[in-house]
């Protein structure tokens, strides 16, 4: 009757999962820009990030997926939502953006898609979907060893530089947010 | 409020609080643990179930009643102090004259509906003739039941 038809069209369960997830990413991304309410668009952004994380999982890049959820859902988007909550009012639908140069925008995104396709297509084994990396390549242990290794393959120096950069941002943020004594006295005198 | 203290004092206080804070929490926990593991401490009553064995607390103020001896004699002299003490006008002391022509208590009318069980009348009574009873099941379906006459006999004078 159905000689393996529905299951052999894509290569297997993983491929079905990939197409489903990709569809959800597209839908949530479109919703994110199409929805009028700004908070709803933030929520759709979150869902789009989460589905991207699921896409990473399907590619066996587990740590990247978790970092995606951790950084974007747990960090960035929460702060976006916080900002929206503190600045906007409920029931304010006046969030219509008219892009004056539709044609240029369209052209820009089209060129972006073109560049992506141009870069990705020459990758060998793209169609067959074979995993080229060794089995344990993306495990947390290997990841950490590579990140903190000081051999030619290691990334210890960029890692440390990034941490110094983060420290600098932290100190800068505190310096800006801190009220100096003169400020406090000025405010008290008022 | 910003206090002016030196850094050393601040650190001293900080370290002291690091010890006293958890200690106070442990003290609190010990109290609740004692309560938790000692069922005898429970004060709530399973009221309708333990109706037979329930004993009201001594200081509970139910409705007003007259102190009477075995023969039903009371000590009221119809002086009207309770009537004057009552903030809600729940008491009406109706006096009559006995055969000897002396003013005695005729009827002690008590409007339970407006009584707040404050107990001021008991405090005001110079002869100790009234008290608050222990009765607490005082609900009724007939408002006329709330108008009662407390004395069975005329007062002694």
């Amino acid at each position, binding site marked *: *009757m*159905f*000689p*393996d038809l529905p*299951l*052999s069209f894509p290569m*297997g*369960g993983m491929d079905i999962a990939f197409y489903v997830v990709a569809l959800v990413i597209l839908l949530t991304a479109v919703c994110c820009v199409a929805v009028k*309410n700004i*908070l*709803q668009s933030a*929520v759709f952004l*979150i869902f789009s990030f989460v589905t991207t994380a699921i896409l990473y*999982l399907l590619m*066996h890049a*587990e*740590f990247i997926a*978790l*970092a995606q*959820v*951790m950084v974007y*859902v*747990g*960090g960035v*988007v*929460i702060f976006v*939502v*916080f900002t929206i*909550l*503190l600045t906007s009012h*409920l*029931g304010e639908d006046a969030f219509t953006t008219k892009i004056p140069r539709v044609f240029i925008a369209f052209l820009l995104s089209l060129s972006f898609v073109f560049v992506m396709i141009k870069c990705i297509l020459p990758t060998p084994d793209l169609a067959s979907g074979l995993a080229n990396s060794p089995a344990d390549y993306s*495990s*947390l242990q290997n990841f950490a060893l590579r990140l903190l290794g000081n051999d030619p393959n290691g990334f210890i120096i960029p890692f440390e530089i990034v941490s110094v950069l983060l420290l600098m941002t932290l100190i800068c943020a505190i310096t800006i947010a801190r009220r100096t004594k003169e400020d406090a006295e000025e405010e008290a005198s008022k | 409020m910003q206090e002016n203290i030196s850094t050393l004092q601040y650190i001293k206080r900080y370290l002291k609080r690091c010890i006293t804070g958890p200690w106070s*929490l442990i003290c*609190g*926990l010990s*109290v*609740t*643990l004692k*309560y*938790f593991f000692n*069922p005898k*401490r*429970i*004060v*709530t009553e*399973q009221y309708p179930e333990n109706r037979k064995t329930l004993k009201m607390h001594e200081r509970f103020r139910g409705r007003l009643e007259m102190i009477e001896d075995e023969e039903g004699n009371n000590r009221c002299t119809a002086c009207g102090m309770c009537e004057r003490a009552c903030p809600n006008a729940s008491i009406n002391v109706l006096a009559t004259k006995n055969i000897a022509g002396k003013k005695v208590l005729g009827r002690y009318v008590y409007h339970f509906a407006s009584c707040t069980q404050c107990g001021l009348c008991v405090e005001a009574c110079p002869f100790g003739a009234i008290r608050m009873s222990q009765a607490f099941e005082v609900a009724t379906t007939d408002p006329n039941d709330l108008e009662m006459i407390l004395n069975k006999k005329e007062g002694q004078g």
Partner: protein
Amino acid sequence: MFVPSVTHPIGDFVRDLVPRIAEYLPASIQSDTLNSVIAFLINAVICIIAVCIVNIGSAPILIYMERKVCAHVQCRLGPMRLGWHGTIQTIADVIKMLFKEVYAPSGADKLMFYLAPLIVLIAPFIVCALIPFDKNLVVADVSMGIPLIIAVNGFGVLGILLGGWSSNNKYSLLGALRSGAQMISYEISFAMILLFVVMISGSTNLMSITMGQEGTIFDWWIFKIPVLGFIAFILFFISSTAEMNRAPFDIAEAEQELTGGYHTEYNGTPFAMFYLAEYIALITNSALATTCFLGGFFPPCVGIDAIDNVLKMVPGVVWFFAKIYFMVWCYMMVRWTFVRPRVDQLMDFEWKFLLPVNLVLLVAGAAFIAIGG
């Protein structure tokens, strides 16, 4: 892998059974792919049902327990009327809750309003799937269990923020913002403590964290690292209490100030979901504490063979649930004993005390491993 698969006995049984049943089907629709997909789906359904039973089934028990513990701490009896000692009281409450009319306040953002309780439920359910209840009883034996737990905890904040904002109520918004700030702050120390556990056990997989504690009671992580283990346990207790928004850190709800915080406007089933999420979080956090510090499903052996043999006859699941409910009891005693700190005190406590102590603890743990371990 992240594909849910029941580990050995049950999963293998299903994988074994499906081809044998498939033999009775007409030959034209038989195929190995179909068999494996169906076996996978059946396993997934079993996993989902198991997680739901553990979570939803334990919520009424916890609510009953909370009411009883609360009552006995306050010299009361608690629910006594429905069933023996009020045992079916919570079931009645749940039924009442489910049959109530669900409506949103006017001016509320309907989509967000009904989405928020669902988002809140994500994190506790995922965490529950990772917990090893026994040697073979774990839904997802993931190699990166701890990072996943840290990652999904963000959903809780999101749900509360959305629920509070979409209610169109100032109390809700205040409660949501407060709890958002609180949960983001305490997530840091929560993650730090889990990192400490990862460091001393050398694995992010919850199963191997548990297996590292095999032996006597002194092999549990809480006792194995002399003083640090106990300090870490206390810090985990504090930060997870704050993470769950439970008293004494319940400034998100704070009935006296905010009438109910982010779920002021919720009723019926959505409210029940918030409530459920709170209690499932209680279960999962207790299970996490049990797995990371209290030896998971291993019995509390003392090193004397005669006693140990008796203890080992009890299955691991029983030990695990006994430890979970002990932890839950601890959380409840703390809830009904301590007073709620102010918002600024709460933040000060996290940023000025808990976080530095956590960092020192991490360094001390590393030193302990480098020198002694």
